[in-house]
């Protein structure tokens, strides 16, 4: 058996933490990760997601709220069970593999030096088991510098599993890999988490990882929870422009008009109307109506009823051309096209209804986010926009 | 650190410093009186080694003392100035029981500060000759044991012909003899008795003028008498006011050096012994002093003490046959009064230290 003996739920109750200067870096996070499931914590850098993970790991002391594993409180503002006694395993962003040790000793470290010390025989068999499970055979005598990125990743996972933790923590474990390896490891991790059946918290800024690995996604922004839902729901009904952006709806347009009918909304952009899903008011607190488009849901189609636009740039990316077009004063739209376009060309756009999410335009305004979150909204979108460009 | 934090820290530190010293006696302590002590032949020797700060003799003294009396001794064999400096730095925390030092003026100063044991019942002071008894203070706080010339006029025979050599101290002001070598009064124990005698004999103004003239011509000061001798032997200085023992040593090793014992006499230095007022081992300390005042001890120290044995002892009946032939038997020694030397010590030494800056 590779995972832990029994699965336990993780509960966070009103968890928050302040910086030394008194500013809250995380506030009022409430969630439960049912036993054996994976929670992805999604957000851009600086949103508090790493702090959340460090609070769970016992590397930070909460300013308010508590962390419970099973029924046992592990962290409260007054007392924190130190990390070595929490029975958790963690995979670090930079792997944190000790450069002076060999793979065998790195994996067996906790069983030799930790509070879960075992006999040398038990340690050897556990290390052998993990080496096999993570396909590290033949690398036992190597040091971290002699391993490839993917191998390091697997050693880090093996180390985290060695002491049969009841909770696994992942801190952006794939962010240091190149894009091809990242996709591979994503699949591998999804498989692994399912096989292990261990409760896990997975922090990432990459929407595809969150959607692929998680049973539930917690979206953090400005230190607060903005959405806590299954991945499909985050994709289908983001609670704000900012979540939509994170979920891949990377182009933002300001429509001239919005008509709402239940879950559907009709927006008018550059004099042309198209349909999208209405997601209520923007939880981020944006005032006017907005529409967010997914690049895969926008096609160039010069037929009638298409939204008029002008090509700004077109870059060949192998599988497709990445085309950015300007739609009058409403904004710019990113899309993928099988053929190149010349900057300055006039084109028409057609938008699939499930590729557009619409905020605002409804009668009742319900601002969810704090003023603080609203303030940060632009920066978040901007960053996410850059991420999208890179990907 | 903010300004107020700094202030608090500084205040706290100051209070701490005051607190540490609060236990120390603040005013002038009464001199330790040993009048009700038992003499060395009747008292019980305390445990632990006797700590002796000494300028002459070193292990020659301590080894024989331990052999004769069975009392272990731990010696600090230091320059005279260093001994005085240590005693001063340790005034509140003395690390010594007995001091043997060339320079009775310095011991007189310590006596006046109450740092020395007094009125204790010494058994062998009767062995002192008339001159020694006359020197010893009434309360026996320090006991003179011998005297010798702190300086004679030594010259390099390659640089100065014997018939042209200076005959008296006033001859040294002749620019032909510049630069004159001398040991630094602040560092070398025997150098202060030289200058203090000039200050006593000539009066302050004239003495300052005398040394000022020497400095104007060129006066090379060295830390100790040893380097003065080296400089003289090498010809770096043609003439030096050099302690007599060093002169005999140079002559013996064949260096081109000779000397003149001036008609008016040579400034002398008195070697004396004293006990710390705070000693936890008064009996062992008295034993040492009484032991020193025997002709046998003095004879041994003179015979085995090398340069340190070239002295005129105050202890009657001492065998002086070990003295070198070069030493004149009738050389007159000029001694500064203890109280004058004590009173003016800091002033004169400071004047000298600053004189060497003025002359450059």
């Amino acid at each position, binding site marked *: 058996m590779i995972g832990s003996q029994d699965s336990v739920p993780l509960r966070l109750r009103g968890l928050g933490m302040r910086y030394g200067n008194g500013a809250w870096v995380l506030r009022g996070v409430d969630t439960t990760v049912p036993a054996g499931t994976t929670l992805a914590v999604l957000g851009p850098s600086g949103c508090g997601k790493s702090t959340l993970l460090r609070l769970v790991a016992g590397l930070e002391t909460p300013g308010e709220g508590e962390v419970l594993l099973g029924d046992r409180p592990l962290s409260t503002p007054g007392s924190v069970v130190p990390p070595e006694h929490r029975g958790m*395993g963690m995979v670090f962003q930079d792997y944190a593999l000790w450069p002076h*040790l060999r793979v065998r000793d790195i994996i067996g470290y906790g069983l030799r030096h930790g509070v879960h010390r075992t006999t040398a025989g038990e340690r050897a068999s556990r290390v052998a088991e993990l080496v096999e499970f993570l396909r590290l055979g033949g690398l036992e005598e190597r040091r971290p510098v002699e391993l490839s990125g993917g191998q390091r990743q697997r050693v880090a996972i093996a180390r985290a599993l060695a002491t049969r933790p009841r909770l696994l923590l992942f801190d952006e474990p794939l962010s240091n890999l190149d894009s091809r390896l990242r996709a591979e490891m994503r699949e591998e991790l999804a498989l692994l988490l399912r096989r292990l059946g261990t409760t896990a918290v997975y922090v990432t800024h990459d929407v595809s990882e969150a959607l692929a690995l998680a049973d539930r996604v917690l979206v953090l922004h400005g230190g607060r929870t903005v959405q806590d839902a299954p991945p499909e729901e985050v994709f289908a009904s983001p609670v704000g422009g900012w979540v939509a952006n994170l979920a891949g709806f990377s182009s933002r347009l300001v429509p001239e008009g919005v008509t709402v009918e239940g879950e559907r909304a009709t927006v008018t952009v550059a004099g042309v109307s198209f349909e999208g899903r209405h997601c209520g008011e923007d939880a981020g607190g944006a005032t006017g109506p907005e529409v967010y488009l997914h690049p895969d849901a926008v096609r160039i189609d010069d037929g009638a009823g298409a939204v008029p636009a002008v090509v700004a740039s077109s870059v060949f990316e192998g599988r497709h051309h990445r085309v950015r077009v300007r739609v009058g004063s409403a904004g710019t739209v990113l899309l993928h096209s099988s053929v190149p376009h010349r900057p300055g060309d006039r084109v028409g756009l057609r938008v699939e209804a499930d590729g557009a999410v619409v905020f605002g335009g409804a009668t009742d305004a319900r601002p969810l986010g704090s003023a603080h979150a609203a303030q940060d909204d632009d920066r978040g979108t901007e960053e996410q926009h850059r991420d999208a460009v890179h990907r | 650190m903010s300004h107020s934090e700094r202030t608090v820290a500084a205040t706290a530190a100051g209070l701490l410093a005051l607190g540490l010293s609060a236990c120390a006696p603040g*005013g002038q302590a009464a001199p330790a009186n040993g009048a009700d002590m038992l003499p060395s032949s009747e008292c019980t020797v305390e445990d632990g080694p006797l700590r002796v700060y000494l300028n002459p003799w070193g292990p020659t003294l301590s080894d024989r003392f331990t052999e004769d009396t069975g009392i272990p001794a731990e010696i600090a064999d230091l320059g005279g100035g260093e001994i005085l400096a240590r005693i001063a730095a340790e005034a509140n*925390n003395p690390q010594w029981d007995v001091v043997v030092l060339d320079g009775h003026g310095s011991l007189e100063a310590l006596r006046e500060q109450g740092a020395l044991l007094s009125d204790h019942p010494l058994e062998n002071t009767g062995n002192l000759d008339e001159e020694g008894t006359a020197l010893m203070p009434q309360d026996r706080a320090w006991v003179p044991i011998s005297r010798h010339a702190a300086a004679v006029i030594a010259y390099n025979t390659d640089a100065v012909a014997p018939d042209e050599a200076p005959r008296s101290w006033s001859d040294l002001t002749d620019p032909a003899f510049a630069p004159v070598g001398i040991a630094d009064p*602040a560092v070398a124990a025997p150098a202060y008795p030289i200058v203090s005698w000039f200050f006593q004999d000539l009066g302050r103004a004239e003495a300052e003028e005398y040394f000022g003239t020497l400095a104007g011509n060129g006066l090379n000061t060295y830390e100790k008498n040893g380097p003065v001798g080296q400089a003289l032997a090498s010809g770096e200085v043609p003439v030096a006011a050099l302690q007599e023992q060093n002169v005999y040593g140079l002559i013996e090793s064949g260096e081109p050096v000779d000397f003149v014992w001036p008609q008016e006499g040579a400034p002398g230095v008195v070697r004396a012994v004293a006990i710390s007022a705070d000693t936890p081992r008064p009996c062992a300390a008295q034993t040492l002093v009484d032991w020193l005042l025997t002709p046998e001890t003095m004879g041994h120290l003179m015979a085995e003490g090398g340069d340190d044995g070239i002295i005129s002892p105050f202890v009657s009946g001492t065998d002086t046959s070990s003295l070198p032939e070069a030493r004149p038997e009738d050389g007159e020694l000029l001694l500064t009064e203890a109280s004058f030397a004590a009173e003016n010590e800091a002033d004169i030494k400071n004047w000298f230290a600053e004189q060497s800056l003025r002359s450059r």
Partner: protein
Amino acid sequence: MTSLLERTRGGGRRRGAPENALGWAVLALLAVLVGLPLLFVVVQGVAPGLGLERDWSVRPDLLGEIVRRPLWQASLANSLTLASGAMLFGGVLGTALAFLRHTVAFPGARLLDGVAWALLVSPSFVLAQGWVLFASPSGVAVNTLGVDPSPLVFSPAGLVVITGLVKYPFAYLAVSAALHWDDRSYRQAAALSGARPWTVLRTVRVPLLTPAVAAGAILVFVDVLGDFGLPAALSAAYPYPTLPYSIYASVRQSPVSFELGGVLSFYLVVVISAAVLLYLRAVRGSRYDFLTGSAAPASPPPARIPVLWSGLTALLAALTFGVPLGTSLQVSFSRTLHGGLTPENMTLEHYAEIFAGGSRMLEGLANSLSIALAAAAATTLLAFLTGVVLTFTRFRGRFLIDVAGTVSLAVPGIVLAVGYIFLWNQPVLADLGLGLYGHPALLVLAGTAGALPIAVRLQLGALAQVPPGLLNAAALSGARPATRLRTVLVPLVAPALVSSFAAVLASGIFDLAATTMLAPPSFATLPVEILAEYDRGGYGYATAGAVVSAALVLLLTAASSAIGRRLLGGPPSGRRT
């Protein structure tokens, strides 16, 4: 980065207790080792005799007394003259040599590095003693070479030159460290942008290197100002009172003058603090701090006239290292100094005396070595723990530790030693059973305090390279705080630990300032034996002792740097854990 030092207690709650306990312990040790002695020195400047004599008074006016005391003025003026002059001369010399070393390749170029390190670790008293015996009116130059350089050397300008020749390695090594990092692509980028060589030098190279040059020169200034070995050797030949020597004389020569020691220490610390602040400013955020920088040497193109540069290097080595050590060597084999280099003046008697059974010099050698070993071990451990607190904890008093570390960089050994006399002579300590005055243990404490700032800097550099994640990973694997230090941190910074141990050991063997001030009189130490014999005029015996100590120090340094290199550069096959 906080998970280093928390631990469970009674059911596994409580956090930060060990972290804070360690922090307070380090802070308390620093206060005792550096803070209190310094405080006592300054207090003596305004309240002379406090706690030391039966009579004392509070006299804050003493700080201004300098205007009326010629000796105080001369000490300050001489120190400033010497330090500024040596800073200029040594700075220019060191910088020029560093440029030479890293601009062209020629046979023997590595000798420049070797000479610089040898000068740096050799006790300055030994070097200065060699120079004095070389240049004095009856010295080696007169007797062997037939020229008398004494009027030239024993003048302020001459002393500046000698001091510069002894201390230039600070500038050389600082600039060399920067030149290691002097990426050629910066210059190539400028050239491709159309800049001519002169423009490249003016706009790229000089601005990049200016902080290093400034830092090196300031290091020379700081070291000369605080150095006691040089004035101690000089005092025998030439009355040139400097601050360190006058401070020494104020406490160790008669008449004792605590206020002089206190006031001059105050001035000395103020001047050096200002210089240290400038230094830290110069190296801030840069890689110019050669104490922490470790870099692979670049390989410059071959020189056009290699013979010229090789010759220059040989000449420099002969001048800076050959003259003082050669002089010491010759004098150590001579009967008398003024006898010169003649067959009848040659003798082995001084070495025979040293190596005779039971000689004070041998005893002193053994004692000094033991003290240095103890101080090196204590310093390395304390510096490691200080570095850990500064790097890996959130102890609230960290800034105080930081301040203490910076301040102690500015406290020269002689001031520290005077502070130890003032502090440990307080009778209240003896009453508490802490009467360490007159005990060799005090030498270990003083050695530790003196070496701590450099050791901390060495280790901070290494600790900063360790990602906190490595320790957090160990914590999550279940390792307790002490285990994390032992199994993760210590192996990772082992080269820094070794080199800081070696540096402290090498400098501790000949810690002249601390030993002359603090060694119990009956406890023989190497520097005190040599200094005493030198003062007495026993130059042959003194130089023989100096030659033996210099050989020992160089040997130890070379051995430990070899060990350090092995730890650092060993192939990954070397060790099993």
